[in-house]
Structure formats: structure tokens, C-alpha cells
């Protein structure tokens, strides 16, 4: 479409502002994390690494970080296995039951977090799952399943099923076919499902806030508690670490993906 220079300039400016609005606010945690004083007031004073040290040495922080890693790793594997199996099942069903079941598995995405949280909390109180690893894993797995299903289903849609027939006609049994033909071809979907599941669990806060107890806290719960309780710049240090870790992961992933696509062409 032809655009007048003025329209173009205005559009560019608006988008620049939106981009800044999207990215810049989060960056504010970086200077705050080097604050010398125990305060989140702006501007930060002096320079120190003490909040990073505190993150590593204070068991409140380091334990919650390790808990989050543990929960998210188990959830990533569990949700990926269950989600991939379900995606396969739905792919091979008749359209009507498949759509119904797909909607069911996607419901956790739209149910308001607090409603889900009080429901799970009620059940966990009865079954003594509050503050347990199993409790966190079960709840987070359900929340991560939709992302795995979406990622793997998208890959299955473009997967040519005749390849499986070909493998079978050459004598491979179902398991061998899956392992040597199907799985390698849908690996990108499974992998991005795994990543999404990990991120979902690592970041989950609403349900976690309800099912946590002093013995088992995840990192987001600890961050939330810290923000509401006191102005501890350790949250800014944690935020900075998470910000850089995700940027490197996504940036790296997108670059890899772009290179791979270019290579294929």
C-alpha cells in the first residue's frame, strides 16, 4: 500500500512508542538490582552486588528457585508426554469427538485463575496435597497441557501420514514407526511444547499462591510475597536474571530457527 511520508512517520512513531511501552518498563529492574540501599525507590543509590549474593545465599530465595526448577522440570516432561499422546489421539479421531476433547483440554487456558485456584485449594485441603511437590506438579501439568497440545497439533497437521503407512509396509511395527519416522518429524512441535510447559510452570503464580505453604514455595510465590511484604531489591536481582535468561533463550531460539529455515531453502 502506498503511504504518504507523513502517515509513515506518524505510524513509525506510534509503533516506536508501543515497542518502548512493551519492553522498557521491564528493564527498570536492572538498575534497581544494583541498589546499595535496601529500597526500591527510584533512582537507586550507589552500586553493589549484594542482592545477587543474597539471592544465592538466602535460603528463602535459593530454595524457592530450586523448587521452581524441580517442579517445572517434572511438569515439562509430564505435560509433554501426556500432551503429545493426547495430540496424537485427537489427530486420529473423528472430527466431532476430537473437537470436543480438544476444547476440554484447552479449558484451563480460559478458566479465571482464581476460580481454578480456590477449587484446587479446596480439593487439596481434603487430600492433604497443599504444599507438596505432587500437588504443584499436578496443578501445573494441567495448566501446561494446552500449550503442548497446541504446539504438537500444529505439527501433526502438516505431517504426512503416508510416511507411517510406508514404514509399516516396509515391515516396521507401530513403535518402531513412531520412534524412527513420526517422532523425528514432529520433534520441533514436541520441543516447543516442552519449553512452553516449562515456562508455564516456572511462571505460574495464582494457583501456586493458594497451594503453597511455608515448607514448599516456588519462586513466583517468593517474589510476590517479597513485593507485598517489604522493599527488598533481591526481587529486582531475580527479575534481572530471569529477564536475561529468557531473552537469551528466545533470541537464541529464533536465530536458530531462522538459520534452519534459510538452510532448508
Amino acid at each position, binding site marked *: 500500500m502506498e503511504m504518504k511520508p507523513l502517515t509513515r512517520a506518524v*505510524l513509525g512513531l506510534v509503533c516506536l512508542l508501543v515497542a518502548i511501552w512493551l519492553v522498557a518498563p521491564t528493564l527498570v529492574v536492572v538498575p534497581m538490582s544494583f541498589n546499595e540501599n535496601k529500597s526500591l525507590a527510584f533512582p537507586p543509590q550507589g552500586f553493589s552486588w549484594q542482592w545477587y549474593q543474597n539471592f544465592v545465599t538466602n535460603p528463602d530465595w535459593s530454595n524457592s528457585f530450586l523448587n521452581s526448577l524441580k517442579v517445572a522440570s517434572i511438569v515439562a516432561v509430564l505435560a509433554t508426554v501426556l500432551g503429545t499422546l493426547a495430540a496424537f*489421539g485427537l489427530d486420529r479421531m473423528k472430527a466431532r469427538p476430537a473437537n470436543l476433547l480438544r476444547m476440554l483440554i484447552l479449558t484451563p487456558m480460559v*478458566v479465571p485463575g482464581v476460580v481454578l485456584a480456590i477449587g484446587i485449594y479446596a480439593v487439596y485441603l481434603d487430600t492433604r496435597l497443599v504444599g507438596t511437590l505432587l500437588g504443584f506438579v499436578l496443578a501445573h501439568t494441567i495448566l501446561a497441557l494446552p500449550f503442548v497440545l497446541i504446539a504438537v497439533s500444529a505439527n501433526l497437521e502438516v505431517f504426512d501420514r503416508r510416511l507411517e503407512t510406508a514404514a509399516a509396509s516396509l515391515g516396521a511395527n507401530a513403535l518402531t514407526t513412531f520412534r524412527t519416522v513420526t517422532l523425528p518429524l514432529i520433534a520441533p512441535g514436541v520441543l516447543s511444547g516442552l519449553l512452553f510447559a516449562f515456562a508455564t510452570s*516456572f511462571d505460574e503464580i495464582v494457583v501456586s499462591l493458594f497451594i503453597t505453604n511455608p515448607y514448599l514455595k516456588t519462586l513466583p510465590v517468593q517474589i510476590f510475597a517479597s*513485593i507485598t511484604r517489604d522493599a527488598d531489591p533481591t526481587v529486582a536481582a531475580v527479575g534481572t536474571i530471569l529477564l536475561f535468561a529468557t531473552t537469551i533463550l528466545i533470541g537464541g531460539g529464533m536465530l536458530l530457527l531462522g538459520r534452519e529455515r534459510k538452510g532448508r531453502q
Partner: protein
Amino acid sequence: MSASEPTIPAAERRWAWRPYALAMPALVLLLAVIGYPLLTIVLRSLSEPQWGLQNYIWFFSAPINLTVLQRTFVISTWVTLVCVVSAYPYAYLMTAVGPRIRLVLMLCVLIPFWVSGVVRTLSWVILLQDSGVINSILRSFGLGGVRLIRTQTGVVIGMAQVLLPFMILPLYSVMKGIDLRLMRAAQSLGARPFRAFFTIYLPLSLPGVYAGAIIVFILALGFYITPALLGGPRSTMLSTLVQTQVLSLLQWGRGGAMGVVLLVVTFVLLALAAPVMRSRYREAGRR
């Protein structure tokens, strides 16, 4: 090939139960961890302290609840409007620039999308608080501070930023598919750019606006963390009220009734949106 052909349907019939078996573990977990808890909440809202509709009658007769319900809708509407207005030009520019700038614009959307929601809300606390970035900038210009944290404006600014990617992504995926030659055709037939935009481009992009707006509105209705940290007593949303009833007052019946109301509103909105979304997917499939 001809020898094996008749056996395939037979084999398929024999294995017809298999897809269901594959989906079973996920469904069982779903019923146990979502279905049963939601059922528990519905039952408690009807049975505590005794069987009946008293919790719902209480919800719709107490003025404070109605105020919060109305406020939840107002805040969600504002958030959705802010998202539509800022996402539309952004998504459009993503379709109009070269691949390199598009990658940068995409990263600007995806990075905040991936950065922990709690951390993003924390940064809004730092920005908006009375001793925060915005107020210290205002003060350095000799202007008095403004109150942003614990106000509705603060909540809307923070929530809109957190939800903006959910608006940009569907909008972009629809705009990507719009044939720009239609615009050129309109202009060659004498339409001015504005007219061509409003009669051709805007209607074609509306499904994206609609999809994004529904997602943002639904997510905003149930938002909990951002209003809890950025808001104050005068910007309480429904989710916070549910939490207070259950955790602080131990009123499972009342909290449950509020939760059910929130759930019903969400699903009604989804049901209203479903036909539009479906027709959009059908179109996408045809393309």
C-alpha cells in the same frame, strides 16, 4: 499394494479405540485436577452454610459486590480498548516492513510475553509508586507528584501492557493474510487512502481485532496479580474479592458463588465469540 489394501480398513477398525486410549491419561488428569475442583466450588456455593441460593442472592444484593463487578467490567473494557488502539498500528507495521525489522518488532512482543508476569508487575510497581520513576521524573521538572499506584489508571496501564501481546499476535496473523492488492485496486479506482482503509482494510482485519479483544477481555476479567499489586481498595477487582472471601473470611460458599459468576460470564463471552472465531478459521483454511 493391492494385496494389502483390504487389510488396512480391517486393521483400522480393530485399532479404532486406540486414539481414545492415547488421549485418556490427559483427560483423566483434567477431570481430577480441573473438573472435580470446579464441581466442588459449584456445590459449595450452593450448599454452604446450607443448601439454597443464599450465596447468589447475597452476591447480587450487596452493593459492594455490584460495585466491584461493575468495576471489573469497566477496567477490562478500558484495558481492551487501550490494547486495540495500540496493537492495531503495531501489527499493521509488522506486515509492512522488511523481515529484519519485523524480527525486531516480533522480539519486542515475545520477550515481555515470556518474561515472568510477576516480574513485569514488579517493574510497574517500581515505575508507578510514589517514589517511583515517573514521579521522580515529574519532580525533576518541578512538577508535583501524581498518584498512580493504587489507582484505577495505574491498574489499567499495567494490565494493558501485560496483555498487549495477546492482542498483537492474533491481529498480526489476520493482517498477514490480507491481500494488499485490494487496497491498490481501490486506490486505482479513485478511492483516497483513508477511504480505501476504512472500506477495505479495516473490515478485513476485524476478525483479528475481535479475536484479540475477546482474549484480552476474558483474561482481564480474571486478572489477579496485577490488580492485587498495583491496585488499592478503590480498584479491587472480582478475583481479589474471591480470594478475600476464601482465604481471609473462610466463606467458601460466598467465595464460590463469586467464582461461579466469574466463570459463567467468561464462558458466555466465549460462546458469543465462538461462531465468529470459527468462521475466521474456516476462511483461513480455505486460503
